[in-house]
């Protein structure tokens, strides 16, 4: 759970950028937008899990109930 999360997000971002470029050149631009959305959703889900973990940790740490 250390630094690899950031590299994972970077990889997803670059991958979706490349895929959407390829799809656009093939003429399927609507699939390209879908691919970009999919990449965004995957990253968002991952980050949201981490954020909820952070908030739970702070809640338990400072017993903020």
């Amino acid at each position, binding site marked *: *759970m*250390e*630094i690899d*999360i*950031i*590299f994972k*997000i*970077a990889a*997803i*971002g*670059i991958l*979706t*950028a490349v895929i959407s470029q390829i799809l656009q050149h093939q003429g399927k631009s609507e699939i390209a937008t879908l691919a*970009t959305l999919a*990449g*965004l959703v995957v*990253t*968002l889900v991952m*980050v949201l899990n*981490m*954020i909820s973990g*952070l*908030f739970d*940790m*702070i*809640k338990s*740490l*400072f*017993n*903020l109930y």
Partner: protein
Amino acid sequence: MILKILGVGICSVIINVIIKQYKPELAVLVNVCGGLLIFLIVVNSVTGVVNELVQMEDGAKLQIDIISPIMKVIGIGYITEFTAELAEDSGNKAISTKILLGGKIAICSLAIPLVKKLIATIFSII
């Protein structure tokens, strides 16, 4: 420990800049993850400090209702600061000030009983 924080910070800044060219919306998420990782590194020493405070409070038989609001205020302060800076970083300053306003109000509502107790003790001394 500090070197780890510096490493994570530099990596997330560089990756944020790289990603900003391809996917600006993902750059914000890289910022979020960078801040989170740094907090995960720091959290062990924070738990140490919190435990020390709680033990100190038990020993001195201070009223529990003085220490726990202070801890709550620290927690609320940290979370609102984390989100407000994030909002400001990604460019929307208005939302960040609103978040700060919310945090201030939450802290005020927590601090009211303490102020009341302080005034009561002062009057009892006079």
